[in-house]
């Protein structure tokens, strides 16, 4: 087990000059020992690069990687003693399932009795006990991926286990079960787990701390609740949640907000005492917090329902706020137990509330940004 410190940047090409030349722009990041982390971001944002830098499959073009304070930048994955599981299953075709699971242990000269015991435990955990004697090449994709996971987890003494979107090929049903297994393993063994994914649900349910990445930079690190309630960057707000956070360009004038051609008085709202930024800024609101309120409630904007959509447990309303060139479409979630307004109905949406975030140049300014520990990359 180890505390992993990164102070690196990486470019695949030689002589990087512009920011775009970097797969990973210069950053400093620490993964505490025993933590469960997720690296979350869209494809091509540098997640896998960061993972490979930690495992040693890749040597950073600049900077150092430290495990427990020791510089391991030049060390091989074997010397770093990390385990890594890849997106697509890798099994040794000619070996049985048991031999596959035992492979990392045998390569390190672990005693046969201990190998047998560990293989038995891991097979039990991953529901592979019945298949132990079978040849690995004839199994289904998800069984093969469970073998890959098993090879990653079979060593007890690893510094960290790194997962690179390991559940992509697994059936949705089994995904939940495997993710729970991983959490259980984390709780029992207190391993450092780092999990790369572009699936926010996976990240939010798996990790204690989520590292959100974009264009080779880290934009925010925080718990699921922090990322949800106070996205440090508009990208995080947009990326997390479904649908994501919505943004409305606004200016503040004499005790009222002007947006979409409407003047919204803020006296009497919870944010009345806030110091609003000078000039134009952006209001960020999540569909869940856009409550329907009586007409002319302070902090509410007027809109017209365009469309309503039954999502089962709730209604999703599409509301047009404002008219003409300044009109903005907003989504609002309405509980299924009340009768939702029909199309073309006039509604009032509460834009200014405790959950409202304010952004200037894509950065959170209100409510005061959470401790931006390491997020400034």
């Amino acid at each position: 087990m180890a505390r992993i410190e990164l102070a690196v940047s990486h470019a695949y090409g030689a002589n990087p000059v512009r920011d775009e030349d970097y797969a990973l722009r210069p950053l400093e990041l620490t993964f505490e020992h025993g933590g469960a982390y997720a690296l979350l971001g869209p494809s091509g944002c540098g997640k896998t690069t960061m993972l490979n830098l930690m495992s040693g499959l890749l040597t950073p073009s600049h900077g150092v990687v430290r495990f427990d304070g020791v510089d391991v930048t030049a060390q091989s994955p074997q010397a770093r003693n990390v385990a890594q599981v890849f997106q697509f299953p890798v099994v040794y075709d000619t070996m049985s399932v048991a031999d596959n699971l035992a492979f990392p242990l045998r390569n390190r000269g672990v005693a046969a009795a201990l190998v047998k015991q560990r293989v038995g435990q891991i097979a039990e955990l991953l529901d592979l006990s019945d298949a132990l004697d079978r040849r690995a090449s004839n199994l289904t994709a998800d069984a093969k991926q469970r073998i890959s996971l098993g090879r990653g987890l079979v060593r007890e003494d690893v510094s960290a286990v790194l997962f690179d979107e390991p559940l992509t090929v697994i059936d949705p049903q089994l995904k939940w079960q495997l993710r729970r297994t991983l959490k259980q393993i984390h709780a029992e063994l207190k391993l450092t787990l780092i999990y790369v994914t572009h699936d926010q649900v996976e990240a939010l349910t798996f990790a204690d701390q989520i590292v959100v990445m974009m264009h080779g930079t880290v934009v925010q690190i925080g718990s699921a609740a922090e990322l949800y309630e106070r996205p440090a960057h508009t990208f995080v707000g947009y990326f997390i949640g479904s649908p994501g956070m919505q943004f409305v360009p606004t200016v503040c004038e004499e005790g009222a907000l002007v947006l979409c051609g409407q003047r919204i008085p803020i006296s009497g709202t919870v944010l009345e005492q806030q110091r609003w930024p000078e000039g134009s800024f952006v209001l960020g609101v999540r569909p869940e917090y856009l409550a329907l309120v009586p007409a002319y409630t302070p902090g509410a904007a007027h809109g017209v329902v365009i469309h309503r959509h039954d999502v089962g447990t709730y209604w999703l309303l599409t509301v047009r706020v404002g008219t003409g060139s300044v009109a903005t479409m907003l989504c609002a979630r309405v509980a299924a137990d009340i009768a939702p307004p029909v199309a073309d109905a006039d509604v009032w949406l509460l834009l200014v509330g405790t959950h409202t975030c304010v952004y200037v140049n894509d950065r959170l300014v209100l409510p005061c940004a959470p401790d931006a520990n390491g997020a400034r990359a």
Partner: protein
Amino acid sequence: MKPVNQRAWLLVLPVVCCVAFSAILPLMTVVNYSVQDIISPERRVFVGTEWFAAVLRDADLHAALWRQLLFSLSVLVVEVPLGILLSLCMPASGWRSSLVLVLVAMSLLIPWNVVGTIWQIFGRTDIGLLGATLTRLGVDYSYAGHAGDAWATVLLMDVWHWTPLVALLCFAGLRAIPDAYYQAARIDGASTFAVFRYIQLPKLRDVLMIAVLLRFMDSFMIYTEPFVLTGGGPGNATTFLSQYLTQKAVGQFDLGPAAAFSLIYFLLILMLCFILYQWMQRVGQDRAVEQHDG
């Protein structure tokens, strides 16, 4: 009732013609010869299976067959491992890779009889680099005089000529292995040998099967190079099946026995390739069943 459209046959006709003229008619001519004794263009006698019986009892042919089998096996035993080794040493990408590919493929571009000529000169004890060097070193080498030397030279020539084919096939097979396998092996702490044994070799199975079949068929039909180099000698030491056949058909003009033997030769190659293919197909599967039962 739906009218049946027979026009599709017209579309198949060109292929039927091609195959008829390129394969079926020549083969039938051979079948025709094999059952007749052609005394002169005007006089011929139907002899039934007599030629087949005679050919199968021919001691020279038996000797040539065993020689041929030994040669083909030697070719496989040397060229396949050597080809794999070579492909593992070839650079994977960049200009070096292109350069090495061209260099390796060079010998494949040389016509057969030129290969024979090259080695004939190469092995000469007076001016050939190989022959003269060995003679200087005090080795009594002569591919024309000693059966063993002739054998070794023919084998070496074939290895030089055809190992690159095996290497190129394996190289292509190696490049098709996804990077994730090598990464996983590094994470699992696998040694270079383990990577070869558990990743590269299993993934090369299919291309190796093609390589073995090609090299087996080709070496089993070898003619030009030994003909140019040793002419089948000294004695009959390097007379392989094709050469034996040519001696019969062209040298002695025994068309009947030659035709009968051609058919046997053809069926022999077909059968051996079939057996080889079946065996290689099962190499992987058997073990799986064993392990499952065990």
